[in-house]
């Protein structure tokens, strides 16, 4: 065998985070079979250790950027940004679920292993530099997520959620794969940069072909980011899945899916920008409108947050539509701010829902400010960030997105998007109203949140505020790492 075919150590170094995650996940799976119930308490710390190590590795790998495995993967600032983000989300997910699993009497190693595998898949998505890797990363992440959505297997809603997610998800992935096949058929390559070169060449594949392939792939991406009209699964899945899993699904896979969307459209399909920008324009607007106006109607807070997360995908799509370096940076920053905000909100929902998730109506939050002022204050921070009130990450995120949009002369999209965010204020305010302005109803006592969940909630809140008050660090990194 030719020695040049063998990967170098530098290449292994660049995928060390994925290796660590996979190995840790596998170890957890093995130990699950051999450890006694009492010893299984180590799974959460073990998973956290794996995530921490992989985060360190991801940051270290940024010091030696470059491609790996024949350009299949690429480590650059963009990849590092998303790797660190999804790993951080994975950590939060572990913190938010340990007590939840105990509460639902379903402790188990496979939950943590699935989180680790899903994060590994998302890391691959972040680094993927060609279509097959994108597909593989997406599948690793998705399959783990499908199982997570149905983790409480005795619960009917969990089953419905998982089944729906799986069927629709596979269907959408098929479209993605079909698009990949088209592209490969017409260009003879799956490498993103190479595809771009082919498309730019005179006499390359016609715009019709490229456009069709890009559209087919967008079906797959649009499903993962829950963009209209591919958003119908999100409310059912988020409502049915265990609350910490909804928290995880609504941010981690979404961020990674945006990473591949940005990478593919800004690199491979950049020559066809004139064709896809109008499509994304309409899609962004439709997503914002569908998400916000449907959220107004909801009475279940998990559904409400699901629709709100659809709307937020619409805001990020505005940044993608801007198709500029600053648009890419804005999308990255927004996804980071949104990840902590939305995760935090779902974490508080996890807490208030109590055993069996019986309290997920908006009215169930009545008087939370009097019962547990700290939790209410945290949820207030998250909701204000989702509304986009200054000094929270959500505000800066929106600000950068609409700045990018105006830079690219998308005046109407900006105005409509901003008006949308004013509409959105209405349904977030409803939750604030219930928490602060209604008296608690007599009923089951709300036990204090466990320490791990508190870490998840406070950690998210601190991140939300830091991104809102001192955004420079993250923003500078995003600007430097943005795709050109």
């Amino acid at each position, binding site marked *: 065998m030719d020695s040049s075919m063998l990967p170098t150590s530098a290449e292994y170094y660049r995928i060390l985070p994925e290796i660590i995650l996979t190995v840790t996940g596998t170890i957890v799976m093995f130990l699950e079979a051999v450890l006694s119930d009492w010893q299984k308490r180590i799974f959460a710390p073990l998973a956290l250790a794996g995530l921490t190590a992989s985060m360190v590795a991801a940051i270290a790998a940024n010091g030696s950027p470059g491609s790996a495995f024949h350009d299949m993967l690429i480590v650059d600032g963009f990849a590092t940004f998303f790797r660190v983000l999804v790993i951080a989300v994975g950590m939060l997910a572990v913190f938010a679920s340990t007590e939840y699993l105990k509460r639902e009497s379903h402790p188990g190693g496979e939950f943590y292993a699935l989180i680790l595998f899903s994060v590994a898949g998302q890391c691959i998505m972040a680094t993927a530099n060609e279509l097959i890797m994108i597909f593989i990363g997406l599948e690793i992440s998705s399959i783990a997520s499908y199982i997570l959505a149905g983790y409480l297997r005795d619960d009917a809603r969990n089953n419905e959620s998982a089944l729906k997610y799986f069927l629709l998800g596979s269907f959408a992935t098929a479209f993605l794969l079909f698009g990949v096949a088209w592209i490969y058929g017409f260009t003879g390559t799956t490498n993103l940069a190479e595809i771009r070169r082919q498309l730019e060449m005179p006499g390359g594949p016609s715009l019709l072909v490229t456009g069709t392939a890009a559209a087919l792939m967008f079906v797959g991406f649009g499903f993962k980011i829950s963009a209209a009209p591919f958003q119908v699964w999100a409310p059912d899945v988020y409502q049915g899945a265990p609350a910490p899993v909804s928290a995880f699904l609504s941010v981690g896979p979404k961020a990674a899916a945006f990473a591949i969307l940005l990478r593919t459209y800004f690199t491979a399909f950049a020559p066809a920008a004139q064709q896809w920008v109008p499509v994304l324009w309409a899609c962004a607007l439709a997503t914002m409108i569908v998400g916000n106006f449907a959220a107004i109607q909801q009475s279940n807070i998990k559904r409400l947050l699901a629709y709100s997360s659809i709307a937020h995908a619409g805001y990020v799509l505005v940044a993608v539509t801007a198709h500029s370096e600053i648009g890419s940076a804005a999308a990255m920053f927004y996804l980071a701010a949104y990840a902590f905000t939305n995760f935090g909100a779902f974490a508080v929902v996890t807490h208030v829902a109590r055993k069996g998730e019986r309290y997920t109506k908006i009215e169930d939050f009545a008087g939370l400010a009097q019962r547990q002022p700290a939790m209410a204050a945290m949820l207030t921070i998250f909701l204000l960030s989702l509304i986009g*009130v200054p000094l929270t990450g959500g505000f800066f995120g929106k600000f950068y997105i609409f*700045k990018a949009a105006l830079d690219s002369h998308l005046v109407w999209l900006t105005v409509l998007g901003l008006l949308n965010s004013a509409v959105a204020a209405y349904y977030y305010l409803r939750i604030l109203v219930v928490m602060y*302005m209604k008296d608690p109803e007599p009923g089951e006592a709300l036990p204090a949140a466990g320490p791990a969940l508190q870490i998840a909630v406070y950690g998210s809140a601190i991140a939300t505020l830091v991104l809102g008050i001192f955004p420079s660090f993250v923003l500078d990194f995003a600007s430097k790492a943005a795709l050109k």
Partner: protein
Amino acid sequence: MTLLDAVLFLPLVGFLILLIAPKSISRTGALLFSLIVFAISLGLIANQSLSTNVPWIDYPPIRYHVALDGLSLWLVLLTTLLTPIAIAVSWKYIDHRVKEFYAFLLLLEFGLIGVFISMDLFLFYVFWEICLVPMYFLIGIWGHERRIYAAVKFFLYTMAGSVLMLAAIIFLYNKSGTFDYTEIVSQLQTGRLVLDARTELLLFLAFFGSFAIKVPLFPLHTWLPDAHVEAPTAGSVMLASVMLKMGTYGLVRFCLPMFPNAAHQCAWWISALAITGIVYGALVAMVQPNMKKLVAYSSVSHLGFVVLGIFSFTQQGLDGAVYQMLNHGVSTGALFMLVGYLYERRHSLEISAYGGVATPAPNLSIVFLITTLASIGLPMLNNFVGEYLVLQGTANVSMTWTAFAALGVILSACYMLWLYQRVFYGKASEGVAHHMYDLTSREWAAILPLLALMVWMGTYTQSFLPPISAQNARILENTQKLKVERVQNQTPEVARGQ
């Protein structure tokens, strides 16, 4: 770190301390804190040109740039004065969730001061939105029956207006490369930043819409009566006295110097709306059965004067408008306090529930009378000066408008005196006689500073007006100069085009 930063950030510090301090000291602590802030802010009079300008976020270049001038000085002082007063009037009235209440009042003070001294558009927007949150909770938690509806309406109205302002701010940044207000104005003046007529008009409207909702200018005023009626006394006082001034302040500070051509172009219909507001507000106030609603509609009427003065583009008109902002803060704030006093005794806001209050509470009725007279513009009291200046400034532009606006002054006498008559004269019903008692020493302490100001501002304007006039002269000069230079710049291009 200047005195100005201290005045800005101390309320925030107070807010944070109150959050962690035990409940038992929150009332006293808040009062103490706000009094200290007021005492420090008095030092600003001696030092009117303070500013701080340090970077906050590197890119995009957002700076923490705050500065004081003749326009903001008195508005800041009004805020720092009214916060302890608002705390004092809530002393007995707020009996549940005391800690949060006073914490929110201090947070509100922080936001309001920030709005008045921000010289960076982005920073201004940040403070502008921050103000929304505490007021939303103040109305929504401690208000009357329909408080939730009012709070949500208040939030959504303001939010809807301000998102467009945000779009305009971003647009200006993309054109000029800076958020700094002084820098943008100087770029406009030197011709480095040129906005074509249509862009300028749209930007003006985006800013104007957001401010007009806050003022509120007819026909965008419908949130105001709801918010006022439902808010607790302290909320009404802060809302009327200070928060409404955010809108008029914005008009003077941003709309005129940044978009002078559009401002001149739109002045006719804005003035028409202002006059409609003056007359309409007064007429609606006249038929209100609810005292707070009456005062709220009188605010719509009074603020119409302010807008009219601003868009007269004359020195007197602008001076009168700014003076009237302060006057309205003092006298309408006092009116809301007095209505609050009555409510604490009788537990009703309906005028029909009162009558003959003067007999059991003579001091209260005297104080109410002085405030009423101030509000309707009796000479020697504060509102007269502002209204006179506005009317004179408007008269330089159009006699017809002045005549209609003057009608508002007459109408205000009608509804206020009629209110006074129905509440304080006549025979005291049993309910009134049973519940009514005279002013307590705490209530005296809260209202006295405002009474003193009514007289002081009405008799010795020299203490207040010079810094305002100086700043207004600068603003007017900017507004005019830009207009001229723009025309000169355009001429050669036009010639070449032909």
